[in-house]
């Protein structure tokens, strides 16, 4: 389905050959292909437009034009720009506070519960922490059981209160339980919710206010399309979250949502989920993501051919 961008660019760049310099006219075709690739990768419509305009400005204004082939320059420009937009310096997870409190948030089915387990496991094994998982999803059938099953698999304690339908109270009690039992990290799993669901957004706002997390994470499915910007914005407006988790990257999605979200809320992407198993967690590499969005498995070979 997705034609590789490098193939398309190859075609478009072919026309640039022999020009030696980028002009408004000969770059148009290439930019169209870049924009098309971004849209195919689910980068938000407006952001894709802005992006190609920025790249154009940079390309036209460059002095180094004559010393490089235009094709090479374009590939490098696009990739660098993408990488830079998604990256910045790697930001770790903030584990201040005793205990450090981490709040999970996101849409239904994005992977919050699974990631809560993965993160707890990661902190236990890699940072020798003693985490507690807290089950605040009082809505979804068997959501609490799900967290308990993960806790058992990982040998990590889970706090829940099955009869209680007050998620804010459970979150508070969870943090208190952690303090009383010597846990130095608390990970609070919450129910999935829509950004436009006022009542549910109020609930998570109240949880946030009640437990004052050192780290609030927004979990997003990497297969998300154009709506990623709306959702990220809605959650950020209420929670002012600290970082983004991109899940299900073990699939073949191009993951343009990563760029959209980063552009719209300017929060770092901290971890990625790469499978259903508890070990399938990785840090985020902007450059790899840039390649992925562009569908350029092999940028080097493209540059060589250009």
């Amino acid at each position, binding site marked *: 389905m997705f034609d590789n961008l490098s193939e398309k660019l190859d075609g478009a760049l072919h026309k640039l050959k022999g020009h030696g310099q980028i002009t408004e006219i000969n770059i148009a075709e290439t930019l169209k292909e870049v924009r098309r690739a971004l849209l*195919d990768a689910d980068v938000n419509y407006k952001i894709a437009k802005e992006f190609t305009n920025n790249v154009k400005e940079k390309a036209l204004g460059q002095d180094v034009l004559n010393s490089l082939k235009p094709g090479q320059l374009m590939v490098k420009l696009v990739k660098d720009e993408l990488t830079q937009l998604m990256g910045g310096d790697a930001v770790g997870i903030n584990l201040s506070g005793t205990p450090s409190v981490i709040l999970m948030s996101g849409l239904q*089915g994005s992977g919050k519960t699974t990631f809560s387990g993965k993160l707890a496991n990661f902190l236990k094994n890699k940072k020798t922490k003693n985490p507690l998982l807290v089950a605040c999803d009082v809505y979804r059938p068997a959501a609490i059981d799900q967290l308990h099953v993960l806790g058992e698999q990982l040998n990590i304690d889970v706090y829940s209160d099955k009869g209680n339908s007050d998620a804010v109270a459970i979150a508070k009690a969870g943090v208190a339980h952690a303090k009383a039992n010597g846990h130095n990290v608390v990970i609070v799993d919450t129910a999935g919710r829509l950004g436009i669901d006022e009542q549910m957004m109020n609930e998570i706002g109240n949880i946030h206010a009640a437990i004052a997390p050192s780290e609030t994470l927004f979990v997003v*499915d990497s297969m998300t399309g*154009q709506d990623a910007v709306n959702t990220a914005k809605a959650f950020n407006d209420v929670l002012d979250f600290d970082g983004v988790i991109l899940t299900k990257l073990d699939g*073949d*999605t191009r993951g343009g949502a990563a760029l959209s979200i980063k552009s719209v809320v300017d929060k770092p992407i901290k971890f990625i989920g790469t499978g259903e198993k508890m070990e399938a967690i990785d840090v985020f590499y902007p450059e790899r993501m840039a390649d992925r969005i562009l569908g350029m498995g092999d940028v080097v070979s493209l540059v060589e051919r250009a």
Partner: protein
Amino acid sequence: EKSKTSFFSKLSKAVAGKSKVDDEVLDNLEEVLVTSDVGVDTTLKVIERIEDRVSRDKYLGTDELNKILREEIANLLSETNKGVATEFSIPTDKKPYVMMVVGVNGVGKTTTIGKLAYQFKKQGKKVVLGAADTFRAAAIDQLQVWADRVGVPIVKQDMGSDPASVAYDTLKSAISKDADIVIIDTAGRLHNKVNLMNELSKVKRVMQKLVGDAPHDVLLVLDGSTGQNAFEQAKQFTKATEVTSLAVTKLDGTAKGGVVIGISDQFQIPVKYIGVGEGIEDLQVFNKYEFVDSFFK
């Protein structure tokens, strides 16, 4: 409502008195469609069709353009969505009628099954659920909660058991109970995982030992907020299980689910249901005109 009027008023200004749709209109249309996840290919297809019709029919006013627009987009769905079904209905010549529900992780399979079971039960049908997601933590408990809510029997084994064996048991139990409908839940799986996709083919084969032409419906559930990756999902699930219908979930959110237009068009699979919430009643029979209209809201 606000953006709807603004789109159509922009539209009317840009086309007033013209016999050709100009670039501004097309740009606006492109934006609406692409931001609804319709995708570039399908968007171009729609735009081409509109240009054709306008040059042929000598378009006059906004009303006509609006109508043409709705028609052309809906036409992409029409091949496969002929009937204007408003009821949850299934063929009565198969007993039990076997449905298998498939899709990638977290799209809403289990929830959709609960909602479907509720609708069928309401019609007085005998429904049996099969908990063939034996992999995800507490997936069986989740389906059990739904079965209890609806008041239908569920067939299950322990976590980690063979999904094909659960499906087989479910059919066997359904036959002995003289049930009308069987709905099999399966574990979420990404379509690029060959082993997991093969497992689905196996579940199918094993069910055929009891009911030769089962499953009668393979329902692929797509998350309405999914972007262009849904194409690959449709392609790979069709390859492994011959998908016969689609459900689009989570349309109560701000995502438009436009990607199903291209999918329905390309794979000739009808969209049957849409999910519009987490509650038991939050499933609707798909209506293509309402769906298309939602892009312009």
